[in-house]
């Protein structure tokens, strides 16, 4: 029976380490997380639907998923360029740029939030130029997208970078020797190989952006129906002691994200299954 579950090994500590891992995960992650499903079950199905299809909730979902999607798209393009430049070219200060890519992960989100707000308010360093162009930076969906782009960048760069580094130089040389020009080599030989990694990175950035709170709430403006993201709506419900409402919105958010993540995983499997590794 045990043989069926684990390949026998002479290394010690399997039961201890696995037992502790499962215990710890259950205690601090799984049991607390199961609370939201337990809480939701106190609502009738109709009540649940009522909460998550309320106009204000739908607007928040639309805003959260929409801005997350746009920011993931921006990061797909610029993250790929940053990763490419970091792997392929040399330029002064490259090592600092490389290290700074992780800055959004290392910087507390609240700090990022107030700094970005300060930059993009109409009187801010960048906000004034947007103002001239007739664009509202802070306190608009544009501001939210900017904050989410900031947060998502490292996910794309750090998943694409290692794949680009490991790329066998000979496949490019082979393509060139077969008469492909550089543009053909990049689009027909390199991009298909790194595409699954790019997709993974974009998915991670997207997932993070959906739930992001700290860096967004300062720049968002938080106007119901207009610039109120889903996590903030949960927060608002909590402050009004509407726990069932908050939980229902949270469950709706989790369900939509899981469906999207599963779709992305499937699509990634589809594009990578012929590359010999998943």
């Amino acid at each position, binding site marked *: 029976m045990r043989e069926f579950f684990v390949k026998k090994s002479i*290394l010690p500590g399997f039961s201890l380490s696995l037992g502790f891992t499962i215990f710890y995960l259950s205690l601090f*992650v799984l049991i607390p997380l199961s609370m939201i499903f337990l809480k939701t079950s106190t609502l009738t199905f109709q009540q649940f639907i009522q909460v998550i299809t309320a106009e204000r909730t739908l607007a928040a979902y639309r805003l959260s998923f929409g801005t997350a999607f746009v920011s993931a798209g921006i990061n797909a393009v610029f993250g790929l360029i940053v990763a490419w430049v970091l792997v392929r070219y040399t330029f002064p200060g490259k090592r600092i740029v490389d290290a700074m890519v992780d800055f959004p992960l*290392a910087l*507390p989100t609240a*700090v990022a939030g*107030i700094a970005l707000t300060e930059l993009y308010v109409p009187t801010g360093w960048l906000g004034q130029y947007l103002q001239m162009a007739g664009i509202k930076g802070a306190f608009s969906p544009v501001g939210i997208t900017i904050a989410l782009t*900031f947060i998502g960048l490292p996910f794309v760069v750090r998943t694409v970078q290692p794949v680009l580094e490991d790329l066998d130089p000979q496949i490019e040389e082979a393509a060139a020797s077969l008469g492909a020009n550089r543009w053909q080599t990049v689009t027909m030989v390199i991009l298909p190989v790194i595409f699954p990694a790019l997709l993974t990175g974009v998915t991670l950035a997207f997932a993070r952006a959906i*739930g992001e709170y700290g860096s967004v709430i300062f720049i968002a403006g938080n106007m119901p129906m207009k610039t109120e993201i889903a996590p903030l709506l949960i*927060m608002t419900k909590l402050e009004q002691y509407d726990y069932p409402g908050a939980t229902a919105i949270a469950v709706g*958010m989790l369900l939509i994200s899981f469906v999207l993540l599963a779709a992305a995983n499937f699509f990634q499997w589809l594009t990578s299954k012929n590359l010999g590794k998943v």
Partner: protein
Amino acid sequence: MSQLNARTEPRFVRYFLITIALAFFALFLVLPLVCVFHNALSKGWVVYFDALKHPDAIAAMRMTLMTALVVVPMNLVFGVAAAWAISKFDFRGKGLLLSLIDLPLSVSPVIAGLIFILLFGAQGFLGPWLIAHNIRIVFAWPAIVLATLFVTVPMVARELIPIMKSQGTEEEEAALTLGASAWKTFWLVSVPNLRWGILYGVILCNARAMGEFGAVSVVSGHIRGLTNTMPLHVEILYNEYQSAAAFAVASLLAMLAIVTLIAKSIVEAHIRQGQK
């Protein structure tokens, strides 16, 4: 003759791409950082240091430190145990376990806070019992620790698993054939081999633990001088239009981020060398 070979682009394409990358980098990464320090010092050094010396700020710093001091060691032990089970053994359900470990990363921080309110809050699952026994978890330090813990659970494990996997099991097997006991093999061979990986995980876990905002914001209750962490203190000051003070405290957190990045680069170099 230009030095065009099969693996590079024409010069103008290179310069164009580097320019785009650097412009994006400056706009999204450098400017916010400069902005923090510019605003922190906008009213001079006196205001800056006053903001940092304020009793509420000191209390927030203490709260943040105390939280990290509990959370990081716990997640370290978890990370080592999880990495050991996952990278040294073949068992069924490993993929599922890996996804469960990563689960907190795909849960919004606000939801991470919410679940502890639902569990321990006054209307929560264990709320009545806790009130009856006069135990305070929500809107107090224990909930801050739990919420931070939830968010940072994967941080050490995620870094250790690939490192341990790449090291394989041969060195442990060698130690065993040389007569070492299981315990000695673990402490004398496995742990020293992992020391840079452990440091790496601890650095990242610590940065996230000290900087966590959303989850903590839900459970802390924002009681000044009592249950505020540094990021929450920044929020309060900023919302009260004490911009310079807010950015002063924020500048400390930004410095923490910079130190984290520097330490991370150094440790990464060591890990890469160790894998040769």
